């Protein structure tokens, strides 16, 4: 065990050897160190899939829940304890497919948490079916004549919903990804970091194929310009755009009204209500 890395644990990693997921794991650990967080201050939340196994490989609190359900679990955790750094680690099948509805409404709620989506354009743990982001025409194990549905462009959806922070990284570039993750966690509101994560076992293209096509955001891109952000994402090769794409307008955070009245105390520390509180509720129903 590396004594310098408080987030290092000794759990056997089940990913395929050489999987770009390792790069995401490295980036996340380094981001937490950069953010000067300690393991007990972090809570990772995931659903099911290869990406969703990530919390097991990092020393911190975690809730590895059901397929598609990471976001509502994370919302509950965040509502109960806003002082925890809550990060969802998920794949596009988990988060855009099975749990798409939860993500859409998470943009509306704008909780102060980060969602990291490992996008490998394939269902890897179930051996190669099409995913919500598989490009039209690419063959998958269930789409033997090529995928017919158009892929979801979730970063664009995030921009449309004025997501607080929308970025895309590349799993094979953990340095850059780490920087994006640090910014994402620091940014108040819902941060979506989509990560291009080529599947080296089932995917049709090698890592180099993606690397050659990456399109870092132009140096003069203004991430507060919504139209510019959409133009990048909707333009040709928009799926390969990497970097900080959009920063949303400042708007109220999930639970702000409740928290401004009650304070930031974890709900578990509020204790049990006094007898008088309950009695005065009951007494409203006593005839007089």
């Amino acid at each position, binding site marked *: 065990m590396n004594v310098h890395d408080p987030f290092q644990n000794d759990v056997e990693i089940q990913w395929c050897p050489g999987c770009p997921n390792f790069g995401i794991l490295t980036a996340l650990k380094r981001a937490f160190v950069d953010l000067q967080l300690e393991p007990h201050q972090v809570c990772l939340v995931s659903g099911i899939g290869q990406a969703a196994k990530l919390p097991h490989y990092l020393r911190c609190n975690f809730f590895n829940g059901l397929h598609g359900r990471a976001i509502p679990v994370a919302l509950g955790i965040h509502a109960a304890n806003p002082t925890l750094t809550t990060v969802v680690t998920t794949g596009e099948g988990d988060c855009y497919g099975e749990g798409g509805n939860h993500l859409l409404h998470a943009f509306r709620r704008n909780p102060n948490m980060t969602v990291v989506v490992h996008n490998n354009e394939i269902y890897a743990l179930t051996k190669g079916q099409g995913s919500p982001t598989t490009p039209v025409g690419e063959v998958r194990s269930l789409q033997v004549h090529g995928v017919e549905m158009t892929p979801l462009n979730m970063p664009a959806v995030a921009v449309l919903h004025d997501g607080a922070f929308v970025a895309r990284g590349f799993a094979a570039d953990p340095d850059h990804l780490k920087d994006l993750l640090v910014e994402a966690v620091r940014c108040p509101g819902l941060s979506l970091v989509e990560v291009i994560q080529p599947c080296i076992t089932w995917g049709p293209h090698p890592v180099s194929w993606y690397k050659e096509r990456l399109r870092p955001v132009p140096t003069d891109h203004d991430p507060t310009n919504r139209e510019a952000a959409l133009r990048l994402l909707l333009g040709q090769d928009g799926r390969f755009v990497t970097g900080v794409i959009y920063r949303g307008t400042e708007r109220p955070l999930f639970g702000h009204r409740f928290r401004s009245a009650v304070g930031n105390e974890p709900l578990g520390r509020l204790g*049990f209500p006094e007898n008088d509180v309950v009695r005065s509720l009951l007494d409203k129903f006593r005839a007089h």
Partner: protein
Amino acid sequence: MLDCTLVIAGSAGEGIQTIGDVLADALSAHGYAVFTWQEYESRIRGGQNTYTIRVRQDPCNAPTWEADILLCLNQGAYEKAAGRLKDGGILLAEEPYDKAAMVVPFKAMAQERLGRVIYANTIAAGALAGVLGMERDALEEVLGREFAAKGLEVVEANRQAARLGYDAADAACRDACPWSFPKRSGSHYLVTGNEALPMGAVRAGCRFIAAYPMTPSTGVITFLAKRSEELGIFCEQAEDEIGAINMALGASFAGARAMTTTSGGGFALMVEGISLSGMTEVPVVIVLAQRPGPATGLPTRTAQGDLLFAVHAGHGEFPKAVLAPADPKDAFHKMVRAFNLADRFQIPVIVLSDQFLADSRFTITDFEMDRSRPESFLADPESLTIYKRYALTDDGVSPRLVPGMSHHLVTADSDEHDEWGHITEDLAETVPAMMAKRLRKAQHLCRAMKPPEAYRVEDAREVFCSWGATRGAVLEAVDRLRKEAVPVGILHWTELWPLAPVTFPQGARLWTVENNATAQLASLLGQGLGLRIDRHILRSDGLPLTARYIRRAYHERA
């Protein structure tokens, strides 16, 4: 003995709920024991609905069908409800629908005397107060409270409307109406299940609720949302029921006592979350307010059709508890019990309500609040040097900590896991050990469950087995049958799963009495206690069981 039933019939939007509530509040404030129940269509305007008020001197929280007094606000209401009027009962109506009707033209009076037809409801409420022989100012106080937010002018106009209605009815029925409701001493609570359940949750220390609106459960989260900041309870309307239960599980994991509420269809969506609670051992309380199914069924009607669904909800094998309160007082205490059981055994606990319990107003003499207290079962982080969330223990309950509250790391895993909460496929040791650990909790849970309440079973030759919110009707039916010298008793379950051991009276014939079509309690007792019960009194038309219905069904089948 005074026992008067008043039925108000009208379309949605005509204000029968306001009339009913004002009158019920006034009668309660006069010291009477009031019970009300409603049956209504799933629409916001139109249709034909009824609001029934039963008034007595001593509480009897059981629904009645036949009306001593029937108020009809329109022709269709009369056509639907006229059959409920007892021989010699009083029909009060907007127009002369039949020749015996006592006509008080509420709408015309409101328009002519007060300039606005909106006061017709209060005129009708005043007329009912007149028919009941209440005092002329009986509604004044209640109207003052009801309309306080709308200003003094509106309060005064409503009081005037009530007096107009009162005088019109009083003049018309001075000789025909035998009733008299002078003010009595005594003070009761008048409360619905959907008010008592959230108050119980408050008592239990609930700090988080997420739910998707679904009749008849919605009142629970509405009650808490109105008082969210004052009570320190985080309330969230979820995007769907799957989101709702997963949010509750997240909040619970992070240290908040958490719950969700729904009805059958939403509960179906929550089922994977119940299994998740079972596997992750994260406590959660689910209120399932039943309505008739399958599918959308009858959204605004009542049923006890989800008992077996609740007991069996969730894939895989894991312990859970199912409770079914009998009335609002019981609902208050059962919520505290539900949260305590959920925390103690780290399991999902389902509280079965139904439309009848949710919407009916019951008279409660005393809540005896102090009988239930929230208990904490969290471990002390200081006492643990190494922390394993799923540590194997004798009783199967692992010390539970909350993330972020200490340096110990807390995990939850929906995969089969080791003691640390990490995924395992060690079929030789870890997997069977974890399954056995969770199921050990079931044995201890079983010992904590309470047997059914027994009523007049000592000398009973017939025993009615019933459960949940039908208790009032079954009790009244048994008292009536006893008066006819039928030796009947009751075993009434409010803690349904796991089943505590029960002693049945020797030689008595067993029946189940249920608001469903397939005698689900009988199946459950067969499964849990190896018992065979093949006599049933069942009702599954969306209406609540009444004493009259039970008595009649008993005589038909005995």
